[in-house]
């Protein structure tokens, strides 16, 4: 056990400031443990989100010494004991209170994406798909919706182009649907027009922070960009592909969001 110092952002939409706290920390403790100790001992109303405490639910995202992280998976032993650890909410979204931000925009984006639309091939035994054909889709489906990638993407964070770009998290959602062996919807046009694939300039910051190690940029965004390019700049090849066994048949648009999720 040793005493450790923290600077934690306290406040709400109207503003706030960093406050200093000091608590006993023991072996194996993560940042979230320290926050809980602060709640119990000093400040019962310190607002924070968490659920699984094992890196599985993506609730506890925050910025620790300036880096977007899951606080339940960030060990205090990674920081020098005498140094103060600074904790603040993720920045790309409006603050509700303390370490909690309003991430409802993300839920609205998901609603705009045309859902899975399976072909008719399912039999009594379900779909026949081979493991090698679903490996990539499964990579994207590991996403725990922590929104850390959204937080670091400069298109959202610095340029605030929330109206034009859905962000890396939903590029992998789109990629997961587009690459699903049994999906029939064709979202390529809307990936460019509605979801703004062109705005990503492949900085790879999203890939670097993903706690699930999803290779967002290279495995999802770049292949989607290539599909868009094929469609728009090589339409003959696309048409041929469509005539000769192309699977995707139905072009679909983004879905007009209706406000049915409330935070």
């Amino acid at each position, binding site marked *: 056990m040793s005493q450790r110092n923290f600077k934690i952002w306290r406040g709400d939409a109207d503003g706030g400031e960093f406050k200093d706290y000091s608590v006993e920390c023991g072996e194996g403790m993560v940042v979230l443990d320290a926050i809980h100790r602060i709640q119990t001992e000093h400040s019962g109303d310190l607002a924070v989100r968490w659920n*699984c405490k*094992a890196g599985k639910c993506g609730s506890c995202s925050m910025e620790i010494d300036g880096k977007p992280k899951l606080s339940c998976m960030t060990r205090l032993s990674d920081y020098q004991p005498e140094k103060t650890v600074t904790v603040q909410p993720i920045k790309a979204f409006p603050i509700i209170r303390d370490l909690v931000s309003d991430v409802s925009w993300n*839920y609205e984006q*998901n609603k705009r994406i045309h859902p899975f639309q399976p072909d008719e091939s*399912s039999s009594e035994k379900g779909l026949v798909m*081979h*493991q090698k054909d679903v490996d990539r889709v499964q990579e994207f489906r590991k996403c725990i919706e922590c929104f850390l990638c959204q937080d670091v993407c400069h298109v959202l964070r610095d340029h605030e182009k929330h109206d034009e770009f859905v962000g890396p998290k939903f590029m992998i959602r789109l990629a997961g649907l587009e690459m699903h062996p049994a999906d029939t919807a064709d979202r390529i046009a809307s990936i460019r027009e509605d979801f703004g694939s062109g705005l990503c300039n492949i900085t790879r910051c999203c890939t670097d922070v993903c706690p699930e190690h999803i290779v967002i940029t290279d495995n999802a965004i770049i292949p989607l960009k290539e599909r868009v390019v094929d469609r728009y700049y090589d339409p003959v090849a696309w048409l041929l592909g469509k005539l000769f066994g192309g699977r995707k048949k139905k072009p679909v648009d983004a879905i007009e969001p209706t406000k049915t999720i409330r*935070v």
Partner: protein
Amino acid sequence: MGMNLSSDIQRIRHDVVVIGAGGAGLRAAIASSSRGLDTGVVCKSLLGKAHTVMAEGGCAAALGNADSRDNWKVHFRDTMRGGKFLNQWEMAELHAKHAPDEVKLLEQWGAVFDRTPEGLIGQRNFGGHRYPRLAHVGDRTGLEMIRTLQDHAIHQQGIQVHMECTALRIVMDGDKLAGVLAYWRDAGRFVLFECNAVILATGGGGKAWRITSNSWEYTGDGFDLAYKAGAELVNMEFTQFHPTGMVWPPSVRGILVTEGVRGDGGILLNSEGERFMFNYIPEKFAAETADSEEEAERWLAGDKNARRPPELLTRDVVARAITKEVQAGRGSPHGGVFLDIASRRPADVIRRKLPSMYHQFKELAEVDITKDAMEVGPTLHYFMGGIRVDSNTQMTRVPGLFACGECSGGMHGANRLGGNSLSDLLVFGMLAGNGAADYLDKLEATPQASSETVDAAIREATAPLNREEGPNPYLLHEELQDVMNNGVNIVRDKEGLESAIQSLDSLKQKASAVKAHGSSQYNPGWHEAISLSPLLITAESVARAALAREESRGAHTRIDFPGEQDRWQAVHVIISKSADGSMNVRQESAQAPPERLSEIAHSSLTDLEGGSA
């Protein structure tokens, strides 16, 4: 904050309100909205963060993809045997019959399970299941399930999700349900959902214990909501201690280590390096369990004639065995035993089959599970008991109040098999959604919410904020956890249970005087204060039911009453709220099982294979 009276409170009207957005709640909402009902879904956390997201190992369904001898009857038989025949028979039947179709429906909604070499949904071995039966995605099956349901539900006509909103009280009109009072976490404002049917899908109450795999949400709210509305709780004494939780470091104590580790070949060792589970094979399972390491090895290698290794006995058996080894001084350095997969499977297979376990140990315990053994010990994991419902409609005895998923009781009897929860959520979520729709079809008048209940509940909820001073809700919660970990743990006796009940009584007094500092705006201290009441109802009901059942069966172990007693074979312990507000405990004889089912449950395996019985 000012008094928020029912007259000027926010009101939202739905046909049905589902409380909970885990697998059960989302499946129920999809079912009820498919019947044309305007369905509200209320959940304490953000959408997609419910406990279901944490489920690892898989979802049990007799698809017969990995072993064609499997069928619903074998699954039903395994479930009844695992539950020590205390299960509600028709529920176990419905579950086994519907699970395969529900899993295939998930696939149609976009779920991508791991595949067999033939390209079908893959299935893995788990404790108590005769055949490889769990549809899975590595060790993140719950994530796949909740995401699929979530993505499907948000595009479903008629579903509206209310996130970070906590239900406080069911509101009645006479004997019929008329709504539910809740508050928004962000601003702390109250809202009255006016509706004529509520489906509870709130999960369990593991946060009443200190060592648990459960998250902050598991404060037993559904038990409390149902109990206060007049519904019954059944067999609350059956709380499952999962044999393998992390034990080190202290801050992660209790976090789950999936049974998939053992399903994929992991073995349990004591400090002497002995594979001790061979010493704990119960007579009833001896015929179906390997009796030598050599046979267990053949099973792992895929020999269909070899019997299953004893590490895959039901959870109650394994958890008790670990407790005994530790008590006998043969534990690991931090008070658990060793779980070894490193010496059993190549590193790349471990990383592929158990990626999140690999990650979890690496990051949180600095253990590389492809090289070293894990240290594990029992952790409070699951409630077999819960809100009592009708097997077919999922309705409680309160007209209009339904329950499904972990918060409901009956399906799993005295012990749940791993993987049978995820399938339970799907099957009974679907049935509850339909049950609510059928109820509303027949309902004639529209019940109206009574304002007295609403006002009283608001006053009670705001009291901790308005008080000048009082005990710290966090510390009180810790006290409660100690009471349960000491007196109502994996091994119980009369003395310990009675003293726990006494301690709970005095905690009740303190809880009614707690102080939450700060405002009502996103204030976890206040939420903690509010959840003390459901935690205490949950804790008391488990303790009282455990005191009543004078035998050891499944997950309930009484050292003063060892072994299963015939007298208790068909007895349910029922809890309800008496008119004077105290907790009523009574014993009720179970109905005799339908003959078709008891025949299957007692058949030999060879009769059932290929579905011939």
